[in-house]
């Protein structure tokens, strides 16, 4: 048996032995949840500084929280973006569509149509508000939980499902794990499994736009867990040094798989507060308040576009579902957490706001949900005609070897021939 480590330091006077602190979330499975410790400020109280202000002026906003929608379902305060009802309804529908899509794809994975899926339930406001606040040709460097941006930008659901099913119509030729979309024509950068790598890439893209005297800006997203990666620091440093026209987002959904946000440093300060140390403007927003998220993104985008530099936005939200289809959150957190989340559900909050404005009704909402479910169903059926994972309707074998390089070098040519030989040995009748 291995012995424990031996203490070798000499006792010094009356000093106590050093003690390692390992963070522990407040609630584990079975616990009752009490959110009274959370500082949720009243909406409408925070000032909205000028978009061209000094970065340091945003310091109070990094510790507080931009909120627009109150418990009375009204939009209040200087951050109210005053969106017209038509835009609000469109954002509501896009959030609902994203959720309907997530639900159906989750079921598809459970039915064995694909290997993997990740929902964004509870975080829809962040993606959809950002997509609406940006110009269509601004470049997004997403993580894997911003499917709402792709949907908001009108990317066909069927194309998304083809990718999820890795079928013969998959634009990524079955090479990528489901949900790792890539859509250059929709300003949506290829998603990588490696966390936070897209953060310095977004800064580089923004620098390139500045080098060329373009007017487009870039934005990127990481979870609060990934903000612990070195790439976060690299991105923040480069963004600050070159005053890059970029908006960097931390989606603080409280959980990185089974690790609560304390393992990314949340017990000591906010994620937005990190902006100050880099000399970058920072905002902390109620991520379930789509008006607040829109206002923050619009503020940051205007700032970037005016050559006033980068902004870090922390979106305070809650990951309502498991990390992925491979995850069971009941193994590490209380089931009450999501249900009792004090900032509520972004879809419900916008719905109630629209109803309070007299621009929406329960009946309209129900009808919309039915329509959206049908829309997702139709797209799914269409995509399934191109095959589901493991049912033979995939891209030809040779495509596995393409695009490693621009041209196929001799060693890949040889390996491609080998793969085809193996296939013919196993299925002599097979024709591609």
């Amino acid at each position: 048996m291995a012995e424990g480590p031996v203490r070798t330091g000499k006792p010094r006077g009356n000093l106590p032995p050093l003690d390692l602190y390992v963070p522990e979330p407040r609630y584990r499975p079975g616990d009752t949840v009490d959110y009274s410790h959370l500082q949720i400020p009243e909406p409408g109280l925070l000032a909205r500084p000028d978009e061209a202000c000094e970065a340091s002026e945003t310091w109070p906003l990094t510790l507080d929280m931009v909120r627009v929608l109150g418990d009375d379902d009204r939009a209040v305060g200087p951050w109210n973006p005053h969106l017209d009802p038509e835009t609000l309804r469109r954002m509501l529908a896009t959030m609902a569509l994203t959720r309907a899509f997530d639900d159906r794809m989750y079921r598809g994975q459970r039915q064995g149509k694909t290997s993997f899926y990740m929902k964004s339930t509870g975080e829809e406001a962040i993606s959809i508000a950002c997509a609406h606040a940006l110009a269509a040709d601004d470049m997004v460097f997403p993580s894997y939980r911003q499917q709402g941006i792709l949907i908001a930008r009108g990317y066909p659901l069927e194309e998304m499902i083809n990718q999820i099913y890795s079928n013969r119509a998959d634009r990524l030729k079955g090479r990528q794990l489901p949900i790792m979309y890539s859509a250059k024509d929709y300003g949506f950068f290829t998603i990588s499994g490696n966390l936070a790598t897209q953060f310095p890439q977004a800064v580089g893209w923004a620098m390139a736009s500045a080098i060329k005297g373009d007017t487009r800006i870039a934005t990127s997203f990481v979870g609060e867990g990934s903000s612990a990666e070195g790439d976060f620091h690299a991105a923040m440093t480069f963004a600050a040094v070159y005053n890059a026209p970029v908006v960097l987002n931390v989606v603080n959904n409280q959980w990185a798989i089974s690790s609560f946000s304390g393992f990314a440093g949340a017990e000591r300060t906010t994620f937005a507060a990190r902006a100050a140390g880099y000399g970058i403007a920072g905002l902390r927003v109620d991520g379930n308040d789509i008006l607040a998220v829109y206002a923050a993104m619009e503020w940051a985008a205007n700032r970037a576009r005016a050559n006033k530099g980068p902004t870090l936005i922390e979106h305070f939200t809650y990951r309502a579902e498991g990390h992925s289809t491979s995850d069971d959150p009941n193994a590490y957190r209380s089931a009450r957490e999501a249900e009792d989340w004090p900032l509520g559900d972004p879809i419900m909050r916008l719905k109630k706001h629209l109803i309070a404005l007299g621009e929406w009704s329960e009946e309209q909402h129900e009808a919309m949900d039915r329509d959206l479910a049908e829309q997702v169903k139709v797209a799914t059926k269409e995509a399934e005609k191109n095959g589901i994972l493991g049912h033979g309707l995939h891209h030809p074998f040779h495509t596995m070897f393409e695009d490693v390089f621009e041209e196929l070098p001799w060693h890949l040519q040889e390996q491609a021939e080998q793969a085809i030989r193996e296939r013919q040995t196993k299925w002599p009748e097979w024709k591609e």
Partner: protein
Amino acid sequence: MIEENPVSLHDAPSRSMNMIEAINDALDIMMARDPDVVIMGEDVGYFGGVFRATAGLQKKFGKNRVFDTPINECGIIGAAVGMAAYGLRPVPEIQFADYIYPGLDQLVSEAARLRYRSAGEFVAPITVRSPFGGGIFGGQTHSQSPEALFTHVAGLKTVIPATPYDAKGLLIAAIEDNDPVIFFEPKRIYNGPFDGYYDRPSRPWKGLPGSQVPEGYYKVPLGKARVVREGAALTVVTYGTMVHVAEAVLAEKGVDAEIIDLRSLVPLDIDTVEKSVEKTGKCLVIHEATRTSGFGSELVTLVQERCFYHLEAPVERVTGFDTPYPHSLEWAYFPGPVRIGEAVDRLMKD
């Protein structure tokens, strides 16, 4: 090289350059030819680089095209990937190959796979320049030869010049290539070739073969080896500084060796190697990098697989030892004339 550049380089005006001047010239030409080429790295801007490879370029092309970066290799490569996604053609510099590791995730997980994972939607035509190799009393972190870490990565090209002529032509080809290229510059031969006899005076490039560099634009294609010396008794496959060491040692030994400078490790010119070994029946692989899982292992395997019935002796490899690069015992570590000589003797004894 004539076939690559039919417009007759022989007639083009040329001058003798060392490798740094040749690299600087290549960068200058590409900056002028292509407004999307940008140079970035630690100390590359105003100062012109710790090895002077980018001297004068910021003044000529402006700070938007040639600029200093924070000391953060992850950021340098990551930003370069983002710039490439925008449509630029970045040429980032990593000050020493020994310091490329913080950028490794961006190179391996991102630059190398961008084209593949996006089915060609996004590409990373970046050229990462980095001084590499030992022989300069650089100790552990200014001497390494990490090429095998990169040749192992699908989607990266790895290029190593051995002369000023090749350095310029290969660098221009690398910058124009639409795939990410790791361009390792053997810093031991920046100023003159090194024959491995560290106790003899070193020579500058001036006037030596390979230092005559044509003015203006030309390319040395990636994936094509250079036969340094034709021979019938033994094939020596090598690259970088070791090309010159091999040349000197084999001349000293009087062996009629065919010496091949690979120039590109990926893509590899397997035809030239194969043809040579079929002719000579013997093969010696030489590199400075550590032995185990080094690029030499790949070369030995390929020769064994493809030339088995022509081989008259086991394929040998002479490499650095499997230790971190030492400071005081540099010449005991370096695969110099004694180590190469012994291998040549073994191979030539029948």
